[in-house]
């Protein structure tokens, strides 16, 4: 397997322009002759399907939800970055590029990130034109705020529902194309495998979640925009349905999986309250703009927060990182929270929590200002916990939120399988080892609206594709695989529920491959996951049949894939003998507990090739070059 990143040569500022000029175009009259499959309908998939439909391609778009409007992008709260510099506060495309490369701890590809920063300004234009109701100033112009680790105000937002509004913009554009007959939508349909014929992605096998019907879909190219795999941890801020099946099945068919261990732990989530917990709820990190994070100075201090005087509180982020304070990037804030809890200074019943206190902000700005900025988040917090954050400080704790790793793609977003493109969180490309706040929405829309329309055309125009049909042996073989697997899951009839396996896997991952990792723990986890996977196929209980709506069967297939992916994540985390971004290996840290990178040995993308069940995957390295932003130890002090 060769990794050719296809990064254009020459100055980075002109790389995307040059690449676009060099790309071949599909004649407008010929576009309708090409069939394109888009799996996923979130910001990346929805915007891609809509735009490709507008261009004239024949698009089929799939989502497992009952409507494309429900993709998990909808839950993004805080905002979307763009280098508009409307605030005249020193922002520029170069600065957004610089911040993103640095924030990613020098594990992303410079050219991709530069393109992302360039495109960011067009995204805002496009979304405003679609009617996305961004926050505005009284003069009618767009408002901005600073967000998670940035020293400029470049984040555009729509209250605490930015993801929802951006997704509805893409969804409406998609529905317009459905009406125009350019996109055929397949809701409640799950992709269960990828079909590769003569080395190229030529279609998928899907299952209708209502009737259970297995169907094949032939195409000239397949685009996966199926989001991240944070649910491998069972408890995460992801939607319950978010899963890795599409990318994992593609991985098994030959797509390299890059940096699987790079996961993001979000510092501001509502702490776990009990064993029944089904998911974790994020509190937007915009709260850190006005909230101050603290724990009691002394371990074991169980007084209520109002009883703890000012001089017995430790505002540990302000103390350790005076220049960024409460706004340090997510990985740094999460680890710092873990550190104080490990010292026995955590708050709440479980001791796994820290305070996020708005007392000072309310005194300084008045309650009405705080209410206007965060009212809906405060309500949500109160609904879940029963506490009123205007009076009592919020309790927060880190939780799995995003996965920077994903299928390896080149500069044109194509995986190692020709004709298989991967967009958004599902790919690995832009965030390195840590993603900055408000950059996920930016990347999803950049990939979907502004990158894939060019690179897909280039692929189709430069390759002569043979005609294939669904009756060909290639499609039949994959269909049989899919059917056999479903039958196998239903035939075990063991004693344990799917959720109990998933919970156990999540616990292993969180304990050994979570906020901090070490070699011994990872080796243990690999063994434990193998044992659990072995038990799964022998002892899982999947009730019902395959011929109707069977939510347990859906979940069973996804958990089976998580049980394989989890092992790969641990293998990747074990091989990377350094700490960088969200990947913190306890053996590799500075004296004051900061991540210690090893650029001499690990300045590369780890792309893993699948070698068969229960066989070790093969590591391929894509070396990373930094010609513009020179690697340095990240410092937010």
């Amino acid at each position, binding site marked *: 397997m060769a990794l050719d990143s296809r990064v254009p040569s020459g100055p980075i500022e002109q790389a995307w322009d040059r690449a676009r000029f060099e790309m071949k175009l599909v004649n407008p009259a010929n576009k309708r002759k090409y069939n394109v499959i888009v799996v996923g309908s979130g910001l990346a998939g929805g915007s891609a399907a*809509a*735009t490709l439909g*507008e261009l004239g391609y024949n698009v089929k778009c799939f989502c497992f*939800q*009952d*409507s*494309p*409007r*429900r993709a*998990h992008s*909808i*839950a993004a709260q805080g905002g979307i970055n763009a280098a*508009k510099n409307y605030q005249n506060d020193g922002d520029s495309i170069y600065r957004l590029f610089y911040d993103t490369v640095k924030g990613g701890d020098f594990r992303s590809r410079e050219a991709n990130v530069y393109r992302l920063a360039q495109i960011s300004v067009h995204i*805002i*234009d*496009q979304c*405003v*034109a*679609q*009617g996305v*109701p*961004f926050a*505005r*100033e009284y003069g*009618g*112009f*767009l408002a901005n705020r600073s967000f998670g680790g940035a020293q400029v105000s470049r984040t555009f937002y*729509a*209250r605490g*529902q930015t993801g*929802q509004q951006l997704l509805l913009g893409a*969804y*409406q*554009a998609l*529905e*317009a194309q459905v*009406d125009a007959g350019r996109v055929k*939508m397949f*809701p409640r349909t799950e992709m269960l495998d990828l079909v590769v014929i003569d080395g190229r992605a030529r279609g998928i096998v899907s299952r209708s979640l*209502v009737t259970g019907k297995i169907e094949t879909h032939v195409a000239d190219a397949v685009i996966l925009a199926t989001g991240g795999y944070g649910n491998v941890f069972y408890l995460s801020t992801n*939607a*319950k349905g978010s899963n890795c099946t599409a990318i994992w099945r593609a991985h098994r068919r030959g797509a390299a999986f890059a940096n699987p261990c790079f996961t993001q732990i979000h510092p501001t989530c509502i702490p776990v*309250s*009990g064993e*029944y917990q*089904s*998911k974790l*709820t*994020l509190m937007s990190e915009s709260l850190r703009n006005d909230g101050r994070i603290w724990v009691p100075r002394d371990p074991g201090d169980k007084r209520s927060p109002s009883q703890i005087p000012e001089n017995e509180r430790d505002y540990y982020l302000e103390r350790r990182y005076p220049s960024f304070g409460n706004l340090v990037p997510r990985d740094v804030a999460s680890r710092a929270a873990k550190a104080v809890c490990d010292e026995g200074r955590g708050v709440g019943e479980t001791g796994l929590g820290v305070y996020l206190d708005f007392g000072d902000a309310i005194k300084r700005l008045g309650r009405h200002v705080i209410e206007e900025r965060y009212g809906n988040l405060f*309500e949500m917090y109160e*609904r*879940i916990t*029963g506490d009123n954050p205007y009076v009592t400080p919020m309790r927060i704790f880190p939780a799995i939120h995003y996965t920077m790793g994903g299928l390896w793609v080149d500069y044109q977003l194509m995986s190692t399988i020709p004709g298989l493109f991967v967009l958004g969180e599902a790919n690995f490309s832009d965030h390195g080892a840590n993603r900055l706040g408000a950059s996920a929405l930016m990347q999803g829309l950049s990939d979907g609206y*502004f990158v894939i329309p060019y690179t897909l055309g280039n692929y189709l125009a430069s390759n002569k594709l043979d005609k294939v049909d669904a009756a060909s042996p290639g499609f039949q073989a994959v269909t049989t695989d899919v059917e056999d697997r479903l039958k196998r899951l239903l035939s075990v009839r063991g004693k344990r*529920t799917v959720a109990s396996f998933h919970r156990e896997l999540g616990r292993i991952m969180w304990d050994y491959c979570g906020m901090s990792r070490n070699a011994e723990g990872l080796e243990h986890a690999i063994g434990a996951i193998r044992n659990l996977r072995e038990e799964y196929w022998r002892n899982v209980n999947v*009730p*019902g049949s395959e011929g*109707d*709506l069977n939510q*347990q069967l859906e979940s069973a297939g996804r958990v089976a894939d998580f049980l394989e992916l989890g092992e790969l994540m641990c293998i990747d985390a074990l091989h990377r003998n350094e700490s960088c971004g969200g990947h913190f290996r306890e053996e590799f840290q500075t004296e004051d507990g900061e991540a210690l990178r090893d650029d001499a040995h690990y300045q590369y993308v780890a792309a893993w090739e699948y070698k068969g069940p229960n066989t070790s995957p093969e590591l391929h390295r894509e070396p990373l070059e930094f010609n513009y932003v020179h690697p340095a130890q990240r410092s937010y002090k």
Partner: protein
Amino acid sequence: MNLILHVWRQKNASEKGRMERYEANDVNPDMSFLEMMDVVNENLITQGSEPIAFEHDCREGICGSCGFMINGIAHGPQRGTTVCQLHMRHFKDGDELYLEPWRARAFPVIKDLVVDRGAFDRIISAGGYITAHTGSAPDANALPVPKTDADRAMDAAACIGCGACVAACPNASAALFTGAKISHLGLLPQGQPERSRRALAMVAQYNRELFGSCTNIGECEAVCPKEIRIEVISRMNRDYLKAAWKDRSALRDDQAETEPKAGGRR
């Protein structure tokens, strides 16, 4: 606490459904309603029965997947709250709860508490958008939008498309849903060129889907988890009347108005 649940069980669209009784014991008040249902389902699976199918995804009240009737109220007793965000501390030991799917002709039952809300997508598809092909947009600040208009547009745009408004309405009307989108886009300057066509096309599709008509009862507003105001319906009616009077030519032939058919409640 211990609860008694009476749940609508229906194998699929063609079979008849019925209420079944279940016990939910040792319910923790900090659980969400759906977590309580998860526990009930885990027990059903362990006992060899089929779990109750219900729709859910984000469990943060934003995706709009979840929703069913709890004792006749869409999304249950707490105002402005989806069922996934409803917590068990609002119930008490011994409560008896009746859980039923959204009931409307336009929302056929798929299984148990799961219904087909595809009609909402088709209403949006008919005209609930601003045509702005990717790449054609001017600079985002080229068109100032008064803050109050942007805020009101955002109020309407907060709709999550869950369908509670339809379920609560005695006529099974989708006026709140349709009006919310018409208001969101119609309040913004970008939405003006297609304003008439949008109202005509969306209302026509709404009628075609066999939703009932609005008779200003207001149940929709009362149950809406995003607290969308009923004024969006007046806005829809005004846009529709104005367009029907002045701009019928804005409508494509295939979208011509259809008379409301016998729709509404099932």
